[in-house]
């Protein structure tokens, strides 16, 4: 698998609004918020039968 760290933050920000660009932005945010892996939840809860 390619090393994603080869892609700079500026490069990711400049990507178009594709699924991959969105995913890379999320991954970068998550990586920068490593203080507590459990508390770094974004838009969802864990419950499979609830989508928010």
């Amino acid at each position, binding site marked *: *698998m*390619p*090393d*994603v760290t*080869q*892609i700079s933050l500026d*490069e990711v920000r400049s*990507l*178009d*609004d*594709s*699924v*991959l*660009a*969105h*995913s*890379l932005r*999320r*991954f970068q945010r*998550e*990586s920068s918020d490593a203080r507590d*892996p*459990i*508390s*770094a*939840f*974004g*838009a*969802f*809860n*864990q*419950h*499979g*039968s*609830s*989508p*928010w």
Partner: protein
Amino acid sequence: MADTVAITRSDRPAEWPDGFLEVAALRENGWKPSPFRQFLFKVHSRCNLSCDYCYVYEMADQSWRSRPVTMSAEVVAQAATRIADHVITHNLDEVRVILHGGEPLMAGREFFVNLATTVREAVPPECTLEFGMQTNAVLLDESFLDVLLTHRIRVGVSLDGGRDANDRHRSYANGRGSYDNVVSALRRLSAPPYDKLYTGLLCTIDLENDPIATYEALLAFAPPSMDFLLPHGNWSCPPPRRSADTTVTPYADWLIQIFDRWYTAPGRETGIRFFDEIINLVLGGRSQVESIGLTPVTLVVIEADGSLEQVDSLKAAYPGAPATGLNVFDNSFDDALELPAIAARQIGVDGLCETCQRCSVRDICGGGLYPHRYRDGTGFLNPSVYCPDLLRLIQHIRDCVRRDLADLVRT
């Protein structure tokens, strides 16, 4: 309605993890439980629809029959106190309260006002508190939406696609479909000022429906996100068309059609949770949902009578499967963290069977949704009954992401 005989946990032979997984031994080896951060309130134990696949009413566990219809104010107040204690004990900076049922809107407007007010007053102000709800939406009129807006309770709606797809399973007891009522509610929810409450759509997969038509029918309601749920089933009670032939992957085939349509769209049309989570895991990130990945599950369920339960979808496994024997009046949430059944979903790789431990996509799949691993006799120490589908779907998504990353790095 036929009488049922409840089979309690104590009547059953020990199955993994109960009687096998020792929390004390885990602690001695350095493991620490993760505090709960998500509290799912079963606020109403009845529903105004009669969906034929519902895990609450149509599957193994029938405990809803003996529950109070609506969660009492006393249970709400005691649960709020326990949440506050848990926040203080573990110095939590964010917790989420999820309102669920049955159909939660049947609890009524005043119930929602009281619950939101009670929990907000109990939880220390330093802790961010978020509310969300999953509903069938048929009671979601403007007066209810005003209450939800005032109390900042976000809303997810269940919808299975277009009219025919939805009404095949999601109907009233008299057989009338729910589609028209849900559509009316979605039009209100997706328009200002209520659109800020709108979190997305949940769709249970029916292989009889065309996947692209289903996706596009949901997309028409402009959901911020959506998700496609695998029908509940397990090794002892397999899902529809999930055969023992591991070369057959009907659910992966169905989902891959949607993935390719979504992933290759000119722009991002919406979030699809299951796919977003798999991509994030492929990139080396963490999952945020219990159905995929190895992130410790920090969700606990509070039933209408105050009982504490594991994840409610375990009701699909066997009678009493979600039970813990604990309740908010006699027990703290820390007590629940000492249970093998809770620990089993927090210990990552160590909670997987040997087949999963050897698998090449182990850390992405994480064994799939816990209830889907159940087999009578061996409990939850099995691969998911959807193992072939999960493997094929993950490999497909991983290949797409790898290919695009390689192109990106080269350019």
